[in-house]
């Protein structure tokens, strides 16, 4: 496997008219990993994916994908599931999948076995010769996923792959994505679903307002961004925390208080013990959602991102 990252974006910006969609974005997607783009609507995720696919060209900066820089040369090795799903309604499922694979340079004779295998895996084999218009929305979504992976791409870009799927099919799709990763495929995932990202992603890049808020492995994000929060249970409740040094903020959960500590938590523990009995004192590992919420509203600066070397440190 090549040492070069699957995707490298260097200082990439893209505007539509006066609206900046992506601002000076730099990142690297390591090979054979699941890389998640997280962020609210309008944060620039889809534009970034389109830049990676060369559907859009950047105003400035460079986009390098699977070793090809600034060209569509690698597009045949990329599978794409766009957020706005689209299939020809009047075409049969198998013929459509063979056509879309042919556009990736894979002739029907080669794509057919893969398509058959994926259709069977997703329980769609009996629908292979039916027109797409006869399929349910969930089935269409699975067909669209097959269209993205049937050409056996090295990189798969999935924009909101779970939206519109029921929990059972979400699980089927999740397993399929993880299997792709096991086979060595790099998967880029864009989603609002922090839980799914937490379960599947090796790396995440949080975006907001066109810029990168954070990126790195999940552990790094938790370690770097999550410390400083403790949960405390004392006989005095929230009143016991009043006026203590290092307490930045207190979230009163009733029996428990969640305290954001500005400084060394051990100093806070000492101060609390000095006031009375402490029945519980634990460091909180924040969820991805909590990290995101804590940072999404903050002004974006280049310091917000982890150093690249740090982000790469946990690559498998």
């Amino acid at each position, binding site marked *: 496997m090549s040492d070069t990252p699957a995707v490298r974006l260097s200082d990439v910006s893209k505007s539509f008219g006066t609206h900046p969609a992506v601002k000076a974005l730099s990142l690297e997607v390591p090979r054979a990993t699941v890389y998640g783009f997280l962020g609210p609507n309008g944060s620039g995720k889809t534009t970034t994916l389109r830049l990676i*696919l060369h*559907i*859009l060209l950047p105003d400035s900066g460079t986009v390098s994908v699977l070793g090809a820089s600034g060209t*569509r040369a690698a*597009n*045949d090795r*990329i599978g*794409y599931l*766009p957020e*706005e*799903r*689209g*299939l*020809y*309604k*009047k*075409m049969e499922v198998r013929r459509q999948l063979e*056509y*879309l694979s*042919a*556009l*990736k*340079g894979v002739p029907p004779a080669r794509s057919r076995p893969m398509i058959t295998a994926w259709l069977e895996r997703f329980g769609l084999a009996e629908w292979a010769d039916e027109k797409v218009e006869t399929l349910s929305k969930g089935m269409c979504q699975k067909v*669209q996923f097959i*269209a993205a992976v049937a050409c056996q791409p090295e990189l798969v870009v999935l924009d909101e792959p779970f939206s519109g799927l029921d929990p059972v099919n979400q699980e089927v799709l999740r397993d399929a994505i993880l299997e792709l990763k096991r086979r060595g495929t790099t998967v880029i995932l864009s989603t609002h679903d922090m839980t799914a990202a937490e379960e599947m992603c090796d790396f995440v890049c949080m975006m907001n307002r066109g810029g990168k808020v954070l990126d790195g492995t999940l552990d790094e994000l938790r370690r770097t961004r999550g410390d400083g929060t403790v949960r405390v249970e004392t006989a005095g409740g929230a009143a016991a925390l009043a006026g203590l040094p290092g307490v930045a903020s207190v979230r009163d959960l009733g029996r428990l208080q969640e305290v954001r500590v500005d400084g060394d938590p051990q100093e806070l523990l000492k101060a609390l013990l000095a006031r009375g009995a402490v029945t519980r004192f634990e460091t909180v590992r924040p969820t991805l959602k909590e990290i995101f919420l804590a940072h999404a509203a903050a002004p974006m600066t280049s310091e917000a991102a982890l150093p690249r070397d740090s982000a790469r440190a946990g690559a498998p």
Partner: protein
Amino acid sequence: MRKVAAIAVTEFVNTVRSRGFLLALMLTPVFIAASAAVQLIIKERVETEDRRFAVFDPTGRLFDAVSKAAAARDGTGAGRRAPRFVPERAPDGEPSRVAAELSRRVKKGELFAFVMIDAGVLEGRQGAGIAYHAQTQTYLDLPLWLKGALDDAVKEARVGREKVNAAAFARVVKAVPLRRLGMVELDAAGAPLAAPPASLAGDFIVPAAAMFLLFLLVFMSVPMLLHSVIEEKQLRVWEVLVASVSPFQLLMGKLLGNTLVSLSVSFFYLGGAVALAEKCGVGEQVPPQLIAWFLVFQLLALLIYGSMFSAIGAACSELRDAQSLMTPAMFLLIAPMFGWVAILRSPDSSFARWLSLFPPATPMLMLLRLALPPGPEPWEVGLSVLLTAAFTIVCVWMAGKIFRIGILAQGQTPTLRRLAAWVLAK
């Protein structure tokens, strides 16, 4: 190139397998034949009522001649499928009063028309003539027939008045027959051959049919491209497509697919036309080189107008938005057709030459000139193909530029100015 071919083949297969295409393919000639048949049937059915008309004849000599001519006309069978002409003598009286009374009868439906003959018509008096009065002036059969019948009657009466020998006069005024013939060619031995007679098929039907068939094929094909591109945008398929192929490859694939469809339709229609010409004994009027030129100009026209309509489709998110941009493209396609009658009458005029060298008009009008004997000069044909090919390249290039940006644009109402900006964009 393989991807372009894959798109073209899929477009072709999707189109020819659709029920709408098969229906259009079969029903278009049926509709054309049916409308022609209906017109003929209606004409026969509509024109069967007697045309009664009154003749005011102060000379006292012309009414009988008109009656005789009308009876003779019916006797020859001319009136069998057309209405009979039934004259009646108008009452004597002051002409303006008589005319007023006859007008009343026409309005009541008792008469179709009436004729007022001036008293001095036999003497050739200055200003004396014949007036034909009718409410329906668009029906020309009766006045044209009356003119001939009264002309003959007046001449005969004048001959009698002038005491000229009627037989000698008939010999004097006997018309000289004129036959319309083609060129005299020499046989292998250098002996002149008989000139071929002028042929309605070769001089009118084949050239006009070839031009209108080409127009029809282009007119039927290119809007399908526009619909197909807009449909891809509405179905959101475009994003998957442009993640796999460049917008230009997508445009070329669609253009070639559409061209294949149209050429396949030509195969059926041209085959049918040639078979029909053979059956009617005018097969030699449809030479193979004319069919070859038909296909060349069809290809060029499809690429020119196909690229224009694809670009419009790419720029629009909805068909409604496309209407305003389609108007100038449709005008370019249709406007040259207004010159076809002038070219038919004078295919070697300067007007015909220059109009057929104007690239948007060339496919239809140069084909018309090629089908009309003696045909344009070879340099004109060569120049027209060169100019049209160059124009085609420019159209496809511009469409590619519009397509590249337009296919990604959503929710913007396109304008010609915006399209121009897209063409000029890097």
